[in-house]
């Protein structure tokens, strides 16, 4: 992901060393920073996942105490969502949106620099919180009140971290929306934009709509803890369930904030390796928009068990089921894109197909969960854990891998090792399923999530899942090796490594992409 920049004029002057990265306002540099940051956080969150899976390898308490276990599940969730997946796709946005829409850079380059550099302090706060008295927040990534009131200083650090991450996201979103709307090249009208750009426009909008809601939620938690307010305290006239409504009003669109850019990447990769235009471009745009709109109407399906009127349960169930329609349209479109194409299976395509296959499984377990009575049975069990890992890991992460392998030649001018890339895919694919498929069975049998120890009938599936998790984790270290090898000593990439890729960055820019691209806009016919 390290950019090897072409020095067109031989006159390039940058501050060197670390200062270059601290002061940079170049969208490609910042994209690179985002990607490396997210990979680092992916490793940190991954180690936490492995601590969790080690404890769950066998019944009984062996590795950690229950309180630390809860800190691990909480931080694993927060770090993976806010530190790994979201920044990864912002990294893609930074690299690709200007190049794909014919813009010279992001609309506000200096703000772009700030939105990145807010992330490391926030991540540090989360990690430091492990070492303060009382340890890190241990209330789950959902931070449900009133458990949060009982926690120590680690909770306050988490709240500040969430605030900083939120600010970064908001600045990033404003930048992305302004760039896409104002800096498109002449002739690049909305319905000509590559789907990746479209999906980010929608995602940035979702972020703008829900980030203040999250900021408000954690602020109320803070004032309840320290300043005697009673937003979520029944004894003072508040309502703990209000927190859940607020959190999930943010949380459900957040799910799509993670998934929608992943749809975008896959919608670039599948046509490229099918050598055929994306099927149903218009319906893709409409389907994505309807998913975004519906995501505001379904939040309470995360909380059927708090007890709500029957009319509310029915409304949220119908609205949730409805999401299956546009999601189905997208899957059908991707399959139709492959249909009668001229397919090849380089690593990006493998990950895209893996995405398609496993994300659809996650979608179907989502449909199972949308049925309220079944959801009540499966709520807060491992079935839900399995479901959202199919959507987040097999969905977002697989598509991020597809994106890295797809654009790495454009970014660095070098090819990754195709054999190693295929190994990475198959190892990831197999270990992912070993880890998470069996968790469906655990959930069906009634194993609650977030428990450090479990009854004996859950033992064998947990052991299988833990073995899978370690395999999965190691496969990602292998990914790091593949990327570093490509950057250091990869073969030089041809100008157009993928013959089917036809967006601007492939057709109108050299490989590797120059440090400054499209300083005057290209004209799109």
């Amino acid at each position, binding site marked *: 992901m390290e950019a090897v920049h072409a020095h067109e004029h031989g006159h390039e002057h940058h501050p060197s060393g670390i200062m270059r990265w601290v002061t940079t306002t170049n969208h490609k540099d910042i994209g690179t920073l985002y990607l490396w940051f997210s990979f680092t956080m992916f490793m940190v969150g991954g180690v936490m996942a492995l601590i969790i899976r080690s404890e769950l390898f066998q*019944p*009984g308490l062996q590795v950690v105490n*229950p*309180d630390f276990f809860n800190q691990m599940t909480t931080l694993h969730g927060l770090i993976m969502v806010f530190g790994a997946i979201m920044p990864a796709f912002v990294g893609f946005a930074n690299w690709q949106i200007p190049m794909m829409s014919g813009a010279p850079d992001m609309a506000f380059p200096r703000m772009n620099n700030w939105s990145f550099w807010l992330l490391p302090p926030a991540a540090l706060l989360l990690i430091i919180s492990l070492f303060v008295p009382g340890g890190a927040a*241990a209330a789950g990534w959902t931070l*449900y009140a*009133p458990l949060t009131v*009982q926690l*120590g200083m680690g909770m306050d650090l988490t709240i500040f971290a969430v605030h900083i991450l939120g600010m970064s996201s908001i600045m990033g979103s404003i930048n992305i929306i302004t760039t896409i709307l104002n800096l498109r090249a002449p002739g690049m009208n909305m319905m000509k934009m590559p789907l990746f750009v479209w999906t980010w426009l929608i995602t940035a909008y979702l972020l703008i709509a829900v980030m203040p809601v999250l900021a408000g939620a954690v602020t109320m938690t803070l004032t309840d803890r320290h300043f005697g307010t009673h937003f979520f305290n029944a004894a003072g006239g508040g*309502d*703990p*369930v209000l927190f859940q409504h607020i959190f999930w009003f943010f949380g459900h669109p957040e799910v799509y904030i993670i998934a929608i850019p992943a749809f975008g990447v896959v919608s670039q990769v599948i046509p490229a390796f099918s050598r*055929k235009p*994306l*099927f149903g*471009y218009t319906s893709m745009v409409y389907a994505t928009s309807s998913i975004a709109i519906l995501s505001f109407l379904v939040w309470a399906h995360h909380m059927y*068990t*708090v*007890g709500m009127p*029957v009319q509310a*349960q*029915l409304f949220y169930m*119908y609205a949730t*089921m409805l999401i*299956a*329609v546009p999601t*189905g*349209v997208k*899957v*059908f479109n991707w*399959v*139709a894109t*492959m249909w*009668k194409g*001229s397919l*090849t299976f380089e690593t990006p395509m493998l990950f895209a*197909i893996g995405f398609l*296959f496993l994300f659809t*499984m996650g979608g*179907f377990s989502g*449909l*199972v969960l949308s*049925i*309220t*009575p*079944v959801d*009540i049975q499966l*709520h*807060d069990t491992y079935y839900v854990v399995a479901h959202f890992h199919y959507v987040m890991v097999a969905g977002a992460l697989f598509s991020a891998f597809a994106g890295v392998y797809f654009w790495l030649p454009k970014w660095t001018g070098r090819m990754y090792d195709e054999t190693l890339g295929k190994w990475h895919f198959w190892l990831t694919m197999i270990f992912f399923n070993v880890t998470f498929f*069996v968790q469906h069975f655990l959930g*069906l*049998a*009634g194993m*609650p999530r*977030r428990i450090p*120890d*479990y*009854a004996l009938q859950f033992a*064998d599936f947990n*052991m299988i899942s833990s073995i899978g998790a370690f395999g999965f984790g190691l496969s990602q270290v292998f990914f790091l090796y593949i990327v570093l090898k490509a950057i250091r000593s990869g073969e030089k990439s041809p100008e157009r490594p993928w013959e089917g890729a036809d967006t601007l960055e492939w057709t109108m820019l050299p490989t590797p992409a120059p440090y400054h691209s499209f300083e005057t806009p290209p004209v799109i016919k």
Partner: protein
Amino acid sequence: MAGIGMLFGAAGASWAQSRYNLQPPQSPIATQIYDLHMLVLVICVIIFVGVFSFMFYAIVKHRKSVGHKAAQFHENTTVEIIWTVIPFFILIGMAYPATKTIIAMKDTSTPDMTIKATAYQWKWGYDYLNGEGEGISFFSNLATPKAQIEGSRPKGQSYLLEVDNPVVVPVGRKVRILTTANDVLHAWMVPALGVKQDAIPGFIRDTWFKAEKPGTYRGQCAELCGKDHGFMPIVVEAVEPEKYAQWVAEAKSKQGASVVDPNKQFTLAELMALGEKVFAGNCAVCHLASGKGMPPAFPALNGSKVATGPKDAHVKLVLSGKANTAMASFKQLSDADLAAVVTYERNSWGNKAGDLVQPAEVKALRK
């Protein structure tokens, strides 16, 4: 690793044994949920196989290496309308039975009996409010010994799913469960009975079940509630109505026997003996049997300012808890239990306050 073999060898029979599916349903609602899940699962599997057989056909036949040339079509309005509309009708087919079940689940009217389940960190308290057994009230703690959890003793059959006092209910009766909580969110879940309801501090929610067959049905707290979230199981014992009547009689006589004269004066030895039991059942999860606690979240009592300071302050702290910490109120315990446990804390480990607290003093401090 036995699971992997089982995974692929899953025959029809194993579905019924709940290894790969929901637990065998034991109430009308659980049965409906089971059937709904099977219906949706089957529809999903059929669609999944259908869609991906197209994909795999394309992967095999439409690949470049077999010389397939790419077609250039990129839209087809008819097809796109069809695959938007058909899923819509399939969804309606799923929503219809689901709606019926939701309405049935939410109908908590005309119960034969009502039991209030109050969640504490980390145990359940039950009060039989209405119907046969009215007035019975007890706590239900994890019965698995610490030695099994830590691995120094082999784990029993019902490891982590066993309690000292199960909820006993008669079969064939509609039992309404009211849930509430004392401190943070918890959830009362018994999968075989198709019941899961959050317990929310300050609010009362309800749900219901009707056990069809006698048996022991086990569940756990399903909402993260802090350190020992994984260690507060729920056990429901459904028995024939005659046996239930018998149990009610026994429980009532036991409860009558344990009522103590509020003005009785206890000796230090009596209080210490009772206090040790109460401490083990309520306090030791955080402050540990050694009184050393797990600082900083769970402070040591051994040598603590509270346990060696004025006794009124000590009693008040136990009665009302400490705001913004994990120290909850223990006002649900009886005056005698509280007097005993405070006395125990003041005179155990290194603590030598030497004083003792009588139930009457606790009573006076309650507000």
